[in-house]
């Protein structure tokens, strides 16, 4: 898996790590049961604070994306197939382009709906 963070981005680093793991899992690039790097290793590799990685892993665990097991580290959780969601997102994107709705407006609508 490839993880990249941008230190000049306003998005907090732990969220950048978390959202990339989320999309890797959702796309099926990280299969259930895959071991994520130990938090300490990942922190060293990305030259970030250990707590940044731990925060990202804890958020992922809280959302059921990964499981944190003592001794085994972070493991990708068994999640249901997201194919239906991807299809729906494709439809939303297509509709937004058809109607010339700007991405920011679409995002705002989605966020509103998810609340």
């Amino acid at each position, binding site marked *: *898996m*490839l*993880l*990249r*963070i*941008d*230190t*000049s*981005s306003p998005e907090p680093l732990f969220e950048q790590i978390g959202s990339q793991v989320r999309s890797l899992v959702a796309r099926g690039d990280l299969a259930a049961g*895959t*071991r994520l*790097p130990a938090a300490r*290793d*990942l922190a*060293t*590799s*990305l*030259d*970030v604070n250990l707590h940044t990685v731990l925060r990202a892993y804890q958020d992922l665990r809280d959302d059921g994306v990964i499981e944190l097991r003592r001794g085994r580290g972070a493991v990708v959780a068994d999640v249901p197939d997201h194919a239906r969601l991807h299809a729906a997102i494709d439809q939303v994107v297509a509709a937004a382009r058809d109607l010339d709705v700007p991405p920011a407006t679409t995002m705002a609508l989605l966020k509103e709906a998810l609340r």
Partner: protein
Amino acid sequence: MSNPVPDRLRTTLLTLVVPVALLAAATAVALSWADDLPDPVAVHWGTDGPDGFGSLASAIWPMLLTGVVTSVGAWALAFWAGRASATRRIATGTSVGLAAFLGCIMVGSLAGQRGLADAVDAGGFGPTLLVAVIAGLVLGVAAAALVRTDRPQPTTARVDRDAPRLDLGDSERAVWRRSVHSRPTLVVGTVAVLAVLVATVLTRMWALGLLAVLLAALLCSMVAFDATVDERGLDVRSLLGWPRVRVPLDEVERAVARQVEPISEFGGWGYRVGRGGRTGIVLRKGDGLEVHRTGGRILVVTVDDAATAAALLNALADRSRAV
């Protein structure tokens, strides 16, 4: 390649002179016993003691020939293609270890027959095998430890213009990580360990049990690796933590992804030396990462998504030298 092979004198001493001297000494000892030995001597052992007999020469030749041919081959590889210390180390360890093992087998199998009228009365083979395995292992590891580790050879030259690169911004940091394991190795290895265990029980040659333990340890160290590419370079580490191979970022000349064929390129699977002195962590056929390192050294790792790893390694290496 214009890169000279370092340490040729040491390589010749360790990989050729020492093992051939070991084999010569064993042969000399065996020959000096000629008058004390029965004729024919026992040369093969079954479950109930010796079951194959031949002349003294037939007890010496196979060991001597196998050992010398292996040593000359290992020396030639290390002498002409041993640009990486890992290549020289594997060649030296194999050469000395096998020579010690074969020498012990030769001398040990004859030692128990001195003074006998008939070789049928020769004792069991177990103790000889035990000593030979331990001697081969200890001397092989000791010789490998005497090989000089490569000094750091950093470069400031930019990475090959044509090498694939990941688009990486100045404020970006990235890490690539992948585990690679080999199910066939696990299956074949487990079968081999079980077979040796069964043979141990059947022949009651308990020294074989040690061989099973060694095989199992070897299997555990070779069955799965973690590969990481980050700001420090490439790090490939066995699940046991050993063996571990690191290529610092400042020694990367270029990295590419390519298809790897274990048998024809490396003669098998595991942590190996292959054609042209390449070192390889080769667990399966297919997608692999090939890193060209300073000093004409080449490392091959079979791993999925090697294209991303190569592109990131090139991008990181190039960025670190752009200043």
